[in-house]
């Protein structure tokens, strides 16, 4: 099975690119640049929504556990994906959202379970693309748990690879 992913090169979807980078060893996936975000599974099946694409990529690579390892974790992942689109990318109230995120990360290294999941990818990508977060980050001591988690993930290999390739083109 060969999957074909097209990304919007003028506004690259970081979450999708991170998921693609993680699954590329487990599934046959090609990435092209174009005008819209689209994952082509077959002639008749295509996904264009960012969360649908990442969910599909996680589900076809179950050994990576990007969707958590049980039903509870799966629900938690869904919660954070919704959180990333509505609350972090939303127009207002980033400070409230960050307060909740900080609270959740106080006793956690990763958002869900004990390893990396879509929750981490999507929330990290949403924060990375947020100008407000870039400026909040410069204030010392603000949301220390979010800051630790954000820089920890940012230092890991798939994140640096995607960051180097695409983050600059957006700025």
């Amino acid at each position, binding site marked *: 099975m060969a999957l074909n992913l097209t990304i919007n090169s003028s506004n690259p979807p970081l979450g999708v690119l991170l998921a693609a980078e993680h699954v590329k060893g487990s599934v046959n996936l090609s990435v092209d640049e174009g005008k819209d975000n689209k994952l082509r599974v077959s002639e008749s099946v295509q996904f264009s929504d960012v969360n649908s694409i990442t969910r599909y990529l996680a589900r076809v690579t179950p050994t990576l556990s990007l969707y958590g390892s049980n039903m509870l974790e799966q629900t938690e992942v869904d919660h954070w994906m919704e959180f990333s689109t509505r609350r972090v990318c939303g127009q207002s109230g980033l400070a409230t959202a960050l307060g909740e995120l900080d*609270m*959740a990360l*106080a*006793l*956690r*290294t990763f958002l869900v379970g*004990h390893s990396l999941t879509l929750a981490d990818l999507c929330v990290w990508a949403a924060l990375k693309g947020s100008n407000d977060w870039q400026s909040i980050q410069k204030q010392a001591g603000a949301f*220390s748990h979010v*800051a*630790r988690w954000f*820089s*920890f993930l940012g*230092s*890991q290999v798939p994140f640096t690879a995607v960051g180097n390739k695409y983050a600059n083109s957006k700025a």
Partner: protein
Amino acid sequence: MSLKELSSLEKALGLKKPNKYSTQGDRKVPVLQSINGPALVGLVTIATHLVQEAKQPELLGGSAEHKAVVQQWLEYRVTKVDGCHKEDIKTILKDLNSYLEDKVYLAGNQFTLADTLMYYGIHHVIVDLAVQEKEKYMNMTRWFDHVQHYPGVRHHLPPVVVLRNRVYTSGHH
């Protein structure tokens, strides 16, 4: 206790053949009699040797700075944590807690031998902590929970239950 630790470390490193250790003196310092060389004495010395034998030098730190930080925490483990009096343990927990606020691992963003040995060394303290104390030292608790779930680390030790959401939220931040 350190003998059990060394055999767990062997398994964590994926070393197939277990070594035989003896102990020396009142403090039961571990000794490894190697086949082609002098005897190795001391927990950190033997542990470092095992890491090299397993060809995983990255566990001793990457850059020169990282290597120094790893050595510092290994030394802290054997001088401060081991044989520590009951009254002093709170100081150690406080130290670790504030140090770990902006770090995932003791040496920053990479897992090293320092995390494994600190986890083994401090486990008996964490087992006895109340839920409220674990939340008081939450950065330390978060690190501890992460290391006990790190693949292959926890062998001879029972898992410690750690709440993953805060319950005493009105307290300090």
